[in-house]
């Protein structure tokens, strides 16, 4: 395989050892870590801000800087997800489900240690899978068409709702609510405006990040404020030390199968354009539940460390996956990739089938930088973890205003749009109300992300198939996914019959 030209690979790694490369690598990592932690600011914003600086740089250095940012944001985003129920970036949302309960039990250090390690290893695995997929990227991109996207969206929504166990009906209500919210705005396919009521801001619909910040972070802050006390109601501050953190680091290694599955899910789903890291993380989470031992299933949502390992490995592995369609076809897998793509073009590279032959050296530099950054970001996070985790013992009277200020500012910073802050507030109240009444919130973000995908794919499938969905039965890929859906439903139903004890995830 020409791509595995050892000389070029070797040169790429040697390149990283040069002083200015190392400088950009560290700089990118630190910027990424900061942007990852602050809710609302994520990889996309960081990359966009760096574009002007990168233009004057040599192509290799620019790539190193960008890789530093991209590979580190999902790692630090887990920190606030765990400690404050505020996902630093959207793909970290799934981490809040078990990460935050752990923090509440005073085990914030444990969770961060596990998350950082899972992120680091997950990112590496993502790169490995990327390299493995390189020869077949073209086939992958051509094999996945609207019918498959439709079914994958359905699979995602079904598995997430089912994973809430006995609260299935309530979580379905929340998911349906999410679908309706997602349909607000200008409909790309028909050109019609839905539920905008003449308000300009609603023309583009509700943006995912402000909604998520409100739904998860603000709602939790309202709860915390009203409840008084601090995030950690259990455990004591002394136990949050490096020892706890290292204990956490060992967990992903002990649970290597979860790690492997999460990374595979992350890379695979990350490779499908438009589906993205958020979905990958949630699906890895539900996969972890479904493959858990029956007696463990109940503990998800209440502080099961597996529930941290799975999504964190997925959301870092997705970086590797997202590079597949981006590099091989120039189809960005996410908004972040779209920005990255433009950096490539600005430096005269042309993503597409020929990039592997024309710019192979740059590709390997990218890979090497991503690998090193992933590890560096994890190490930095782990070392800082025990100090940061002590935040959970800060009294809510101080914590809540400060976190809220950052959350609202983060929301604003996404697009410099003050109305996003209103959105965050509104969904904060909504999220809180759902939370108080015990309605599982997990289906909401997935509905928002998958709803539009499902809808668009549905109509595309109809048009491609000349007006019927029969095409779904003509394609082997579609049939496989449909069997998966049916399989999941049967599996969960069996689970219902088998254990009458309540399985609850909120």
């Amino acid at each position, binding site marked *: 395989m020409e791509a595995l030209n050892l000389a070029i690979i070797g040169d790429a790694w040697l390149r990283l050892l040069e002083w200015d490369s190392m400088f950009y690598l560290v700089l990118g990592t630190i910027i990424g870590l*900061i942007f990852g932690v602050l809710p609302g*600011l994520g990889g996309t914003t960081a990359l966009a*801000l760096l574009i002007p600086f990168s233009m004057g740089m040599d192509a290799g250095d620019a790539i190193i800087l960008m890789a530093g940012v991209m590979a580190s944001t999902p790692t630090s985003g887990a920190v606030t997800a765990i400690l404050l129920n505020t996902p630093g970036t959207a793909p970290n949302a799934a981490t809040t489900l078990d990460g935050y309960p752990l923090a509440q039990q005073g085990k914030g250090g444990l969770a961060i240690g596990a998350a950082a390690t899972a992120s680091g290893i997950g990112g590496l695995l993502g790169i490995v899978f990327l390299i493995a997929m390189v020869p077949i990227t073209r086939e992958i991109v051509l094999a996945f068409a609207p019918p498959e996207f439709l079914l994958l969206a359905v699979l995602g929504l079904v598995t997430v709702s089912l994973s809430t166990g*006995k*609260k*299935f*009906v*309530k979580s*379905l*209500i929340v998911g*349906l*609510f999410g*679908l*309706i919210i*997602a*349909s607000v705005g200008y*409909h790309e*396919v*028909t050109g*019609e405006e*839905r*539920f905008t009521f003449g308000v300009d801001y609603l023309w583009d619909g509700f943006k995912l990040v402000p909604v998520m910040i409100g739904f998860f972070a*603000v709602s939790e*802050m*309202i*709860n915390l*404020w*009203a*409840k*008084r006390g601090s995030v950690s109601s259990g455990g004591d501050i002394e136990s949050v030390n490096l020892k706890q953190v290292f204990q956490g680091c060992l967990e992903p290694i002990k649970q290597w199968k979860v790690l492997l599955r999460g990374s595979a899910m992350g890379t695979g789903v990350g490779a499908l354009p438009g589906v993205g890291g958020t979905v990958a993380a949630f699906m890895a989470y539900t996969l972890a539940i479904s493959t858990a031992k029956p007696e463990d299933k109940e503990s998800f949502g209440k502080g099961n460390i597996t529930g941290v390992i799975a999504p964190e490995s997925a959301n870092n592995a997705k970086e590797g996956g997202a590079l597949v369609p981006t590099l091989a076809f120039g189809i960005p897998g996410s908004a972040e990739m779209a920005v990255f793509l433009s950096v490539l073009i600005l430096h005269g590279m042309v993503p597409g089938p020929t990039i592997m032959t024309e710019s192979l050296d740059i590709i390997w530099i990218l890979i090497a930088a991503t690998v090193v950054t992933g590890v560096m970001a994890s190490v930095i996070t782990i070392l800082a973890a025990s100090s940061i985790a002590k935040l959970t013992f800060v009294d809510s*009277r*101080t914590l809540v*205003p*400060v976190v*809220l*200020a*950052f959350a*609202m*500012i983060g929301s*604003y*910073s996404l697009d*410099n749009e*003050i109305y996003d*802050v*209103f959105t965050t*507030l509104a969904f*904060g109240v909504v999220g*809180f*109300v*759902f939370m108080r*009444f*015990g309605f599982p919130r997990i289906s909401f973000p997935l509905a928002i992300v998958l*709803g539009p995908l*499902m*809808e668009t794919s*549905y*109509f595309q499938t109809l048009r491609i198939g000349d007006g019927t969905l029969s095409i779904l039965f003509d394609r082997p890929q579609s049939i496989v996914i449909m069997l998966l859906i049916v399989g999941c439903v049967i599996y969960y139903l069996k689970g219902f019959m088998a254990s009458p004890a*309540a399985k*609850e995830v*909120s």
Partner: protein
Amino acid sequence: MIKIDRKNISLLVPLTAFAVGTLVIGSNYGPVSAFIPFWASVFMLITCLFVIFGFDSATEEPSEQDEKKDAEGSDDPDLARLLGAVGWITAFVVIAYYLGLLLGSVIYAFSSMYHFGGKRLASALVISAGLGLCLFGLFEYVLEKELYEGVLVEYVFELVEG
């Protein structure tokens, strides 16, 4: 005899109304646009009614969490404090809209710590000032991103410039 799920009714009624509203408004859209709103609201209506009339098994059995709460003595915050929390956050957003995010954050942090949270004046002042400085430093120098200036502030600038 029809059982009504009393516990969740105060959420379910608005949700049902929401579903009906969506159905009504959505029916005005073209067939392709109305597809998701229509089916989502129909299913939402059905599931809400399902839960309201007590068919949802999850609410019948007391959940573990409920039992725990009853045992510990409910730590459910009272409504007043909850409304206060929401009220304060809304106030923050309004202040931020008029005076900008930086000023709004500092004012909000101070007021909620001192007035609502009952912290000492000194610590409230110090923490909110510290927050303000951190935000300023972060956004002005490190990130070089604008923070929202606020409607009133912009108005004043225009007066000065114009």
